[in-house]
C-alpha cells in the first residue's frame, strides 16, 4: 500500500512545488532559468583573458578551447544538480514548525523527494534545449555530446550524483536538531563540493594529485567526469569503463549517505522537543 501511495505523493508534491516556483516571475527567471550560470561564465571570462594557455589542443590536454568548453558544459549540467537552497528543513527544525509534518500519515522525506523530482524535471526542460541550441550555434565552445550513448552516460551520472547531493544536504540540514543553526555548515559544504566537483576550476588545470584525491568524492563523479564523458575525448571502451566506475562510486556513496541520513534523522527526531526559537 505504502509502495503505491508514496510515489503518488511524491508526484503530487512535485506538482505543487512546480506551481510554487512558477508563481513569481522575476524569481522564477533568476532562480530557475539563470541559476548557476554566473560562476562558470565568469570563469570563461577569466580563461579568455588569461595569457599563456595554448590555443590548440596541447599534449597534456590543457588548452584554452578545452578549458572554456568544459566550463560552458558545466554551466549547463550544474543546473541539474540538487542544491541546498531547495530544502528548508533546518529552518523548519529551528522554528519548530516541523512538528506538523510528524503527525501526517506519510514519511517527511516525501516532501524533499517531491522537490527533487520537480527540480530535475524543470531543469532538464531548460538544459536540453539550451545545450542543443548552444552546440548548434557555437559548437567549438559548447560541444554537443559525442553521441546518444555518451549523452546518456553523462546525464545518468549527473542525476545519480544529484541524488547524492539531496541526501548530503538533507543530512546537513538535519544537523539543526543539535546545532540549531547550520547555514555556515551548508555554505562550507557547498563551496567544497563545488571545488571537488570541478565546478569552479576545470580539472585539467588542477595538479594530478589533487584530481586523484577528488576522484574519491561524489561531486567529482557528478560533474567533472560526466562533462569529460560527454565531450567524448576518450575511446568508447575507456568511456564505458569510466561510466561503470562512476556509477559504482556514486552507488556506494549513496548507500553510505542513505545510512547517515536515516541515522541522523531518526536520532534527531528523538531529540526534537517540538518547540521553536
Amino acid at each position, binding site marked *: 500500500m505504502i509502495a503505491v501511495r508514496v510515489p503518488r505523493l511524491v508526484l503530487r508534491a512535485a506538482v505543487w512545488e512546480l506551481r510554487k516556483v512558477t*508563481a513569481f516571475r522575476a524569481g522564477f527567471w533568476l532562480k530557475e532559468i539563470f541559476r548557476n550560470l554566473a560562476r562558470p561564465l565568469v570563469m570563461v571570462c577569466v580563461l579568455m583573458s588569461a595569457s599563456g594557455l595554448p590555443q590548440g589542443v596541447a599534449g597534456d590536454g590543457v588548452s584554452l578551447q578545452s578549458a572554456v568548453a568544459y566550463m560552458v558544459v558545466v554551466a549547463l549540467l550544474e543546473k541539474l544538480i540538487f542544491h541546498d537552497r531547495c530544502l528548508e528543513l533546518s529552518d523548519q527544525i529551528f522554528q519548530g514548525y516541523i512538528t506538523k509534518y510528524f503527525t501526517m500519515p506519510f514519511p517527511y522525506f516525501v516532501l524533499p523527494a517531491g522537490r527533487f523530482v520537480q527540480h530535475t524535471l524543470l531543469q532538464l526542460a531548460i538544459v536540453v534545449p539550451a545545450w542543443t541550441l548552444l552546440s548548434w550555434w557555437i559548437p567549438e565552445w559548447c560541444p554537443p555530446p559525442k553521441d546518444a550513448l555518451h549523452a546518456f552516460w553523462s546525464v545518468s551520472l549527473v542525476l545519480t550524483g544529484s541524488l547524492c547531493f539531496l541526501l548530503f544536504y538533507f543530512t546537513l540540514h538535519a544537523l539543526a536538531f543539535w546545532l540549531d543553526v547550520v547555514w555556515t555548515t551548508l555554505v*562550507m559544504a557547498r563551496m567544497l563540493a563545488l571545488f571537488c566537483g570541478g565546478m569552479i576550476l576545470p580539472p585539467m588545470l588542477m595538479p594530478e594529485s589533487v584530481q586523484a584525491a577528488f576522484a574519491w568524492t561524489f561531486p567529482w563523479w557528478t560533474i567533472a567526469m560526466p562533462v569529460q564523458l560527454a565531450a567524448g575525448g576518450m575511446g568508447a571502451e575507456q568511456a564505458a569503463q569510466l561510466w561503470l566506475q562512476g556509477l559504482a562510486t556514486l552507488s556506494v556513496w549513496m548507500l553510505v549517505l542513505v545510512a547517515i541520513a536515516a541515522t541522523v534523522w531518526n536520532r534527531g527526531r528523538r531529540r526534537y522537543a517540538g518547540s521553536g526559537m
Partner: protein
Amino acid sequence: MLRHGRIARRYAAIGIVRRAQFRTEFFSQVIMDIVFYGVHVALFEFLYRHVDNVAGWTIHDVRVFLGWLFFSDAFMMVWMSNAWMLPEDLKNGNLDTVRVRPVQPAFLYLFQKFSLEACVNALIALGWLVWAIDAHPQGWTWWQAPLFVWCLVLCCMGRAAVMTLFSTVEFIWVNGELSRVLNLLAVDVNDHPLDVYGRRGRAFLLYMLPLGAMNYAAASMWLGKCGFSEAIALSVFVPTLMVLSFTLFARMFRRYESAMS
C-alpha cells in the same frame, strides 16, 4: 553620527551575547570563511601554474586582490549579514521596529546582526592582505600607510553601499528574493579582477552596477592599476554611492507595509 555609534555599540553587545547561545556556530563560521579563502587561493594558485597573467594581473597582484576581497567579505559578515534576511523579513512583515527610525533605516536594519566570529575572519583576512602586500615585488613604504587605511575604508563603504543598493530592489519586487540573487551574483562576479570582462565590462561593473566598489576599487588603487585621476574619482564615487544608496533605502522603505505578502 553619535547616535549611530551608540546603536552600533549596542548591536555589537547583543551580537556577542547571541554568540554565547550558539557556540558551535562560532567555530563553524570561522571555518566556513577559512574554506572560502582556501578555495579562492587554491583556484588562482592552480590557474597560475598554467598562465602568466590574467588580464594583466600577475599572481602577486591577484594575491593582493584576494586580500581586499577577503577583508571586504569579512566586513560584510561582521556587520551586514542581516541583508540576507531582508526578503523573508519583508514578506513576513518583521520590519515594524525599523519604522521607529531613530537613525537611518538602512543602518538600523542591515547592521543589526553583529558577528563576533567574523571579527576573527577579518583578522585572518588582514593578515593575508599584509602578507600579500609584503610579498609583492613592488613592495611598500610607510608613506603608503594612509592610502592603505583609505583603501580599507573604501572597501567597507563600497560593500555597505552595494548591499544596501541591492536590498532596495526587494521593496519593488517582494517575494522575488532578488536582493539575495544579486548578492550571490556579486560574489561570483566580483571575486576576480574586473579587467577580465574587458574595458566596457569593467566600466559597467565599476560605475553602473557597481560591484567593483566592494573591493576592486581598493585593490586597483593600491596596486596602481588605475591612474591618479581615476583613483580620485573612485575616492569620491564610493562614498557618494554609499550616501545615495542609504537615502534610496530610506525612500523605498516608505513603501513597506506590515505583512506585505
